[in-house]
């Protein structure tokens, strides 16, 4: 089957970078300059951003070794609980509290881990196999996130098989009720439409036959169990092949479809590189994926090492997702505690973790950006700067600037946070803010001096917020 990728419902279509792509070298290893911009780009895309020191530490490695540090980390990770500890003590009827516990547990890992690609790929698969605590109890959600963390850079065929028998997924798409006597097609349909092939690349007969192959799984004491009596072991005709297929066979047939390989390649490119990638680039990455035997680490590595990844086409070519924005802000500031209200704030920004809006996951791209979510982002930063004590404290900034010099403070901020991707006008406005007298209406007469010792704390906090709220900082 040749097939065609269905992009009719992808809002990222139309947001491809301008200019043309040299597809012949696009996925070749990048050997160009690896400065702070490139290092920060890698940190944002393969992780959740970082502090100015994090960026500086990557630069001397060069692109290829820097990617190695993400893919094959040698540093020991921070100690995390494998499973949210509160779930053992908070009773099931306090459902919302349990949901928050799982959200905090995962956000904390994203914030503090030294192996951010593991959490990043887990976030990718969470959006792909979008399962939600609105239906699935949070203890199962935690286990599913852990599955994405452990297998997210493994083999896709194995991952899809694991997802098929993952208790959260058995609940989410009702495959636990899919039995020979009364088939339920929900999971089989979404495997093809949303997880592996895309709309238009299978028939309703394929859905029915795959559903038969997926029969027999159910949940017992919270674990997936296979009941041979409920499994339909008859012959099935699926995507042009016939046999007494089980779920594993169906998955093996799916991943061999060229359209599947392009489907996954496109999704990875839209997550890691840029929106609406060229068909030639998709084709090229699909070949890499197929040749790698569906190995995700090798496929993702090819992306992160590539010319196109470090090209101007990809640089700041995606909007940050709310989670990328929120965690990136904390990492830049050196805040090491997830704010208590972060899940609620993320919901206002349009991305509540473990609660995607539907099985289609989050639309992403332009759908992240509207006036409501933008205000939520701005006010998150403003509240953070008014209430937390980050490592990147005003004193540290003054030290880095070498004194109470507004223009030098602005340079510290725009280079550390934004790798100097800030216009001269915006720098002038930031400097003007620091030099304007009075930190506040109340302090206007009390502090007639511009930026100086008396009010530097509040002024620098204000300048950090303004810097982080620049439009360019919404770009990944």
């Amino acid at each position, binding site marked *: 089957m040749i097939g065609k990728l269905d992009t009719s419902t992808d809002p990222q279509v139309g947001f491809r*970078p301008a200019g043309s792509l040299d597809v012949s070298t696009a996925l070749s290893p990048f050997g160009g300059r690896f400065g702070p911009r490139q290092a920060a780009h890698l940190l944002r895309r393969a992780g959740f951003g970082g502090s100015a020191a994090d960026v500086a530490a990557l630069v001397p490695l060069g692109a290829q070794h820097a990617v190695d540090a993400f893919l094959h980390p040698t540093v020991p990770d921070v100690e995390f609980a494998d499973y949210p500890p509160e779930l053992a003590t908070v009773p099931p009827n306090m459902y919302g509290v349990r949901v928050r516990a799982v959200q905090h547990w995962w956000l904390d890992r994203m914030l503090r881990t030294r192996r951010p690609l593991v959490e990043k790929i887990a976030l990718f698969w969470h959006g792909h196999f979008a399962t939600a605590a609105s239906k699935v109890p949070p203890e199962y959600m935690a286990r599913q996130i852990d599955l994405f963390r452990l297998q997210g850079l493994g083999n896709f065929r194995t991952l899809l098989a694991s997802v098929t028998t993952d208790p959260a997924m058995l609940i989410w798409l009702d495959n636990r009720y899919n039995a020979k006597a009364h088939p339920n097609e929900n999971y089989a349909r979404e495997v093809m439409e949303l997880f592996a092939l895309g709309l238009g690349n299978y028939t309703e007969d394929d859905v029915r036959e795959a559903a038969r192959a997926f029969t027999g799984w159910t949940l017992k004491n919270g674990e997936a169990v296979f009941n041979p009596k409920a499994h339909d072991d008859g012959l099935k005709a699926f995507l042009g092949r016939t046999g007494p297929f089980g779920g594993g066979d169906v998955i093996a047939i799916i991943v061999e479809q060229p359209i599947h390989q392009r489907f996954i390649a496109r999704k990875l490119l839209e997550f890691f590189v840029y929106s609406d990638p060229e068909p030639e680039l998709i084709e090229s990455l699909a070949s890499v994926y197929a040749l790698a035997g569906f190995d995700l680490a090798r496929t993702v590595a090819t992306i992160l090492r590539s010319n196109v990844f470090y090209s101007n086409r990809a640089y700041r070519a*995606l909007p940050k997702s709310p989670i990328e924005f929120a965690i990136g802000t904390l990492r830049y500031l050196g805040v090491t505690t997830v704010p208590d209200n972060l899940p609620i704030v993320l919901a206002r920004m349009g991305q509540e973790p473990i609660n995607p809006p539907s099985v*289609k996951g989050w639309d992403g791209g332009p759908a992240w950006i509207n*006036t*409501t979510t933008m205000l939520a982002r701005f006010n998150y930063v403003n509240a953070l700067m008014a209430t937390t004590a980050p490592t990147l404290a005003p004193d540290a900034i003054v030290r880095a600037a070498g004194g109470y010099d507004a223009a030098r403070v602005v340079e510290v901020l725009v280079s550390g946070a934004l790798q100097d991707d800030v216009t001269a006008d915006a720098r002038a*406005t930031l400097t003007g803010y620091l030099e304007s007298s009075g930190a506040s209406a109340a302090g206007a007469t009390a502090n007639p001096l511009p930026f100086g010792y008396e009010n530097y704390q509040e002024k620098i906090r204000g300048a950090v917020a303004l810097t982080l709220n620049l*439009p360019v900082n*919404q770009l990944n």
Partner: protein
Amino acid sequence: MQRRLFISKSLGVAVLGGTLPAAFARAAAAQTTPGAATAGNRVLVVVQMSGGNDGLNTVVPYTDDAYHRVRPVIALDPKTVLRIDDRIGFNPALSGLAQLFHDGHVALVQAVGYPSPNLSHFEATQIWETASPDRPQQYGWIGRYLDRVYPLGTKPASPFEAVALGDTLPAALVASHVDVPAIGALGAFAYNTGRDLASKRSAGALYDGASGGGSPYLAMIADTAREAYHGGDLLRAKIAGYTTSVTYPTDGFAQQLRLAAQLIGTNAGAQIVFVSLGSFDTHAGQRAQQDRLLGLLGNGLAAFYKDLAAHGNDGRVLTLTFSEFGRRVEQNASNGTDHGTAMPLFVVGGAVHGGVYGEHPSLTDLDHGNLRFATDFRSVYATVIERWLGRSAADVLGGTFPHLDFV
């Protein structure tokens, strides 16, 4: 889309000085816009009763023996119900709504639901809000309507033409490209820097001076940042001229309706407003909780209607209630009710043909202990879209559904 508001790029701080940019100020010069209903100025207000409202204690079949038999504790006393006819009556907590009904401004649509009802809060809410019982839909039914009214590249004249009153955007209003603001508290709809006003002014200067660049998303982000930054001030300016002599109840729901009346009655130009009230999820001790909420609903809608009428807007505003499901016919062991299916909904407005639409559902001919639905909710939506808003509903709803005659 590419609206540019360069105020003063060098030191815009002093120029802006907490006032609105000129273009916004002109647009905001507050006038009220009352008038008769025409296709162009009709308004839809959607009231979500979240949690699943028990229909049988809302519109009470007070003479039905079966009702009293299955609800020995939580049934309403027939003497207290506000009679509609000799079989059904309103819960007395709904006195405000009952008065509107007797004045002929309320259509009561009985037994609304859909085939193979879903009893999960989340999924049923998604179904109602996306008008899609069979397949998950990314966009809401109103979102899809808005996407068709404003094709890609166009946008509403006022950013408040469609608004959700609440902190997050409900699924019903999620559109592919129309930006629907979610407004929690009026005061919180702002770029908030606390007492650091210089920071707020500087942010305005940064956004007014921002433009696109190499990134395919930067222009959109800069535009949206500007609109988000100025949106709160613009909104407050637009509704500033509105006064009302109506005293609303002080609860949050009534205050949302008060803001809705302002958004409708000024050149904020609201045409779609979504408000919500909850939680109606009355698994235990139902009477106290539901009666309190129905009181908020009825009194809020009554004040809202009075305010609209005082400004000549009652004839151009249609208010539609919904809940994700009704509740089980039989009461449970905790003097509450569990998740159920069909329920009544209300359509309120000066142009509404008041009355009862459909039969009260049978309490004995049940489907697994649940009421059978008689009217598909998409028929209600289709009626609202086609007869009230004047657009084709088939492409929005993915099919055609028979109309009701409430409007």
